[in-house]
């Protein structure tokens, strides 16, 4: 057990993956000498050489396209997309190729590609550096989408993602890169299972990535009010571990889902719809979503007005509990 930041935990996971399997190669812009703009690949090129840790020319479609060719050849490429907002030039190669090749070839060709994406806001960045594009990929059959919220999960899950024979979008909550926590390199858990972070009986809060910490804060604040909240960290966004959420909601009868991505067509909709389908008779109130707004990500000095925070989550908790709140009268009428 060592204490590591989340960024260092990914780094140590990558190091283990490179050491354990010589088919693992890292591809990305500035990941070599610079160690990546967040230093997540720091030292890896020095340790494993330029053939294993390859700085890429500046083209995201090129990076993913090249990774596909390497995967055809039996490699396990791990691609870094420098920021969330720069994954879109690679969208075609991801959704039309990476996601479909195994299906297209009836299993003959495997695409064990991991695409690492620092994502989300909260770091005061300029445009295109605070996006939460996970729903696009979760809606794409053939991809797996995961994210982590702790150093332990970051370490274990990046290794699981690389070991997985399917393509995995690995979203790293960039504003939590400096969060510290104990990491046990030998820890293991099922790749696609959610984690019940806090147990509770009144309301279930489902969160992932950067907002897990916020959800925990909300739960602690609510407990002062005598409200017992169960917090679930999804970890896997596609597939979703609906069984775990269902079990929780059957107990609490109330569901709040939070993410930074826009609400409209976001993962919260899928979770709300699926859980409503599974737990219709157990729900005391309609599931509530606390999310980024249906606007582009705003400028840095406005992001605090955009991002879900503790107060907005608690407001939704009030709402599913049927208490008077800001939105009373707006819905659930």
């Amino acid at each position, binding site marked *: 057990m060592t204490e590591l930041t989340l960024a260092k935990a990914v780094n140590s996971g990558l190091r283990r993956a490179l050491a354990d399997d010589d088919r693992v*190669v890292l591809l990305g812009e500035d990941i070599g000498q610079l160690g990546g703009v967040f230093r997540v690949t720091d030292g890896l090129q020095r340790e494993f050489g330029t053939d294993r840790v390859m700085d890429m020319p500046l083209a995201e479609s090129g990076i993913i396209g*090249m990774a596909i060719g390497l995967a055809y050849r039996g490699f396990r490429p791990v691609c870094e997309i420098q920021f969330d907002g720069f994954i879109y030039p690679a969208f075609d190669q991801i959704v039309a190729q990476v996601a479909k090749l195994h299906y297209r070839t009836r299993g003959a060709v495997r695409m064990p590609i991991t695409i690492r994406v620092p994502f989300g806001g909260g770091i005061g960045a300029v445009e295109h550096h605070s996006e939460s594009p996970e729903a696009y990929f979760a809606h794409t059959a053939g991809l797996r989408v995961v994210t982590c919220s702790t150093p332990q999960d970051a370490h274990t899950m990046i290794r699981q993602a690389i070991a997985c024979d399917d393509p995995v979008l690995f979203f790293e909550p960039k504003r939590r890169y400096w969060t510290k926590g104990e990491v046990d390199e030998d820890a293991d858990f099922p790749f696609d299972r959610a984690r019940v972070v806090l147990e509770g009986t009144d309301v279930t809060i489902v969160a992932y990535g950067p907002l897990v910490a916020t959800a925990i804060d909300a739960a602690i604040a609510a407990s002062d009010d005598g409200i017992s909240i169960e917090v679930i960290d999804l970890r896997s966004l596609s597939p979703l571990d609906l069984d775990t959420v269902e079990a929780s909601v059957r107990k609490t009868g109330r569901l709040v889902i939070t993410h930074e991505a826009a609400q409209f067509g976001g993962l919260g909709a899928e979770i709300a719809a699926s859980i409503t389908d599974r737990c219709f008779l157990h729900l005391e109130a309609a599931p509530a979503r606390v999310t980024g707004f249906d606007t582009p990500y705003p400028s840095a000095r406005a992001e605090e007005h955009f991002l879900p925070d503790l107060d907005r989550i608690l407001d939704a908790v009030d709402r599913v509990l049927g208490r008077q709140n800001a939105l009373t009268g707006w819905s659930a009428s």
Partner: protein
Amino acid sequence: MRTTVSETRIEAELPSPPDELVQLLDPEGRRLTDPLYDPYVADVTDDDLMALYEDLVVVRRIDVEATALQRQGQLGLWPPLLGQEAAQVGSARALRADDFVFSSYRENAVAYCRGVELPQLVEVWRGTAQAGWNPYAVNMATPQIVIGAQTLHAVGYAVGCRHDGVDTATVTYFGDGATTQGDVNEAMVFAASFGAPVVFFCQYNQGAISEPVGLQAQRPIAERAPGFGIPSIRVDGNDVLAVLAATRRALERAHRGDGPTFIEAVTYRMGPHTTSDDPSRYVDPEQKAAWAAKDPIARVEAHLRERGVLTEARAASVAAKADEVAAAFRAGCLALPNPAPLSVFDHVYAEPHAGVARQRSQQAAYLRSIGEEGGE
């Protein structure tokens, strides 16, 4: 990987694109000499040339048969290669067995030369599968429909070969229209940066569906590659011998570790873009007639007849072989099984996936409930 750029002009190793097309057999079947390219086909015997001739005839026959199958409703679609036989056969026959191909959708002759089994050639077009064969069985990826996407895959595969310490080359096929796509240009940058052992093989067939090549290129496309640091060759794509020579030269560079080469094979699509297309709306009849006179099969035939190699008897046996292949092809096509209802859920993921598993079970239950066959 080179990380500095000379600021003065460097001569690329191959003369950057020649003014004249490389040509070894002219449209009348005369053998031209070319000091640079002759050595690359010095070993081609009469029998080898007969074999190339047979390939050309057979792939054209397959193409005609496939068009007929489409007209008869047996295929959903077919992209004919009529007119492009020499570009495909000449290049494909230059490959070693371990070389790997990433093609577009029109390279049926390449697939034939790689040893793809006949019915597998049409599975995609019949709609019984999204890919007709296992790429590893013939070292050729299945047809890529997204224009240009495969060129990047080729670069990645080629870099992977180098990492593996093997001297395998990778060849990627694409059209003149494809050269507009960002991906193809990115592939050239990446190939040059990593010195990837890859051959870019562009079939410059004068258009992209209805759009004349002039909309994509103001200059011969082979002139683009040198600017990316990739030497290029412009070859008569209707001359099977010249294409063989040029591809061998490019492959030699790749096998030797000298990096990428770009080949532009100048040819013409004599048929429609696909069987759904209506070329009468846009084809220039004069241009088409001019190209008919440059037919890739006629010139080999003239050459072989002139030299007495192609006798009536041998011609008849080639025709018989073509008919035989066509018959087997048709039979194989008609025998392709339709996919089972629940097969839509197969191979979405390589590892177990709760979501797909659940949907599959639900659909199986649904199919059972309506008494549908195949619902398990």
